[in-house]
């Protein structure tokens, strides 16, 4: 069935230059495999559309039940150059949690 990512995960986002980072963390360790399967770099990029101009990288931290995403060229130049209201990507974590994912009844 389809559920919002926010049902099984929380997130925090920040910046390094023009790259935003989004950490997505499963509330329960047993849901980490769902994150790995469902929250792919391609889906993250598609979710934000034009906001992310560059590529999306993903790193796994199974010890924390977490994924770390780097969204390149997503902050309007970053730092002091950016003209965006969210120049540091502070809200992107909350934005990613609205992603709709597929999860089976049994694995939830």
């Amino acid at each position: 069935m389809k559920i919002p990512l926010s049902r099984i995960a929380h997130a925090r986002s920040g910046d390094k230059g023009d790259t935003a980072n989004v950490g997505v963390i499963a509330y329960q360790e047993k849901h980490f495999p769902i994150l790995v399967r469902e929250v792919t770099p391609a889906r993250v990029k598609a979710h934000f559309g034009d906001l992310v101009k560059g590529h999306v990288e993903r790193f796994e931290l199974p010890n924390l039940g977490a994924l770390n995403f780097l969204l390149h060229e997503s902050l309007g130049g970053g730092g002091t150059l950016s003209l965006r209201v969210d120049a540091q990507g502070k809200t992107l974590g909350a934005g990613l949690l609205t992603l709709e994912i597929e999860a089976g009844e049994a694995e939830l």
Partner: protein
Amino acid sequence: MIRIANGQGFWGDWLEAPVRLVEQGPIDYLILDYLAEITMSILQKQKEADVALGYARDFPPLMGRIASKLRQRNVKVIANAGGVNPIACALEVRRVAPQLKVAVVLGDDIFPRLDELMAAGHAMANMETGAPLSTIRSRVLSANAYIGAFPLAEALATGADVVIAGRSTDTALALAPMVHRFGWKPDEFDKLAAGTIAGHIVECGAQCTGGNCQADWKSIPDMANIGYPIIEAEPDGSFVITKHHGTGGRVSLDSVKEQLLYELGDPLNYITPDCTADFTSIRLKDDGADRVRVSGIRGGPRTPMLKLSISYAYGWKAIGTLVYSTPEAIEKAQAADRIVRERLGQLGLKFEEIYTEILGWNACHGKAAPANANPAEVQLRIGVRGEDRKAIDRFTRELAPLVLNGPPTATGFGDGRPPVREVVAYWPALIPRELISTSIEVFEP
């Protein structure tokens, strides 16, 4: 075990936090992080205007306020408040808190050495673009090397009450007392990585104790009196993250995990001047109310290069806003944006970028924002950036007229024309470690 508390996540953080950390329970070290990447350039400008300035001006008054408590409770302070003028900072601390012994760490400021370093063949190329520093040399405003924990530990060994550094890393502030008290050596990578990760967890202040926490945020108690973080560090490299009893906020597995992921790049290779740290080795354990135990951390050797924080004058920018109400608020804001752009075009003004957002619709999340075709009101926000200050200045005249000569219901222009701001950009680069040597200067009470 030693207790290391962080009372400042950035310059501008809550003024009461460090005072409460000293007053509301036992700590051994109070660390204060004042510097962001761009802060050094602001401080450099202040120093050029007045040779007695160029440091975090909040810091000396704080020392004056808590000096007697620091002595009473034997709390030592470590702060990167020195900016580009750590000696002036130390002198001001001595003036307002004469009973304190102050040690200053020098050597991070390479602004006066830039030409000599370039002549010796160090390109200091931009880590993102690859361009050599020579392409912007005339516009450089400040240049500092990131200093690690060992020079800070050396300063603590002088018996100083207050250690003032310039551009030390945030994590070094927390690691330094562990190196000093536990005698950790430069090749004890796992321990240094552990202290570094402890520093990463606390470096943004209350962001690990319930601040900006998404996990069940509405249930986090008493945020008005949020407790700032305390590391209970052990000689073996394990530690507990906690806060003072009776303070607000929450230290939980969730709050600590969120902060561990904050501003993280490759988790296998977190690079600092002291070591590399592996975030996939971290083991977290619930250790009771508002306590999280951290262990298992592995690290690797320090890299041969140090990171530089260089700032340079880039150009100018301005951001103007107008509010439009329902009905058709979004369409009105879009029409106003088209009008502004057409008028700027007619004037022949050139900008590096014109960027428009509609707040209340989709500015933060783009297409991921929930659909809402009829918001009660939106804020049109147009920003421009470029090298020509005159063009930016002219732009700031183009929003107000729309109140009378554009789409209906424009309001919210009470503050007048938006200010033109200088854009100071950041130039990340590397330099061989052996070119940076530090020294300590001590001011006796």
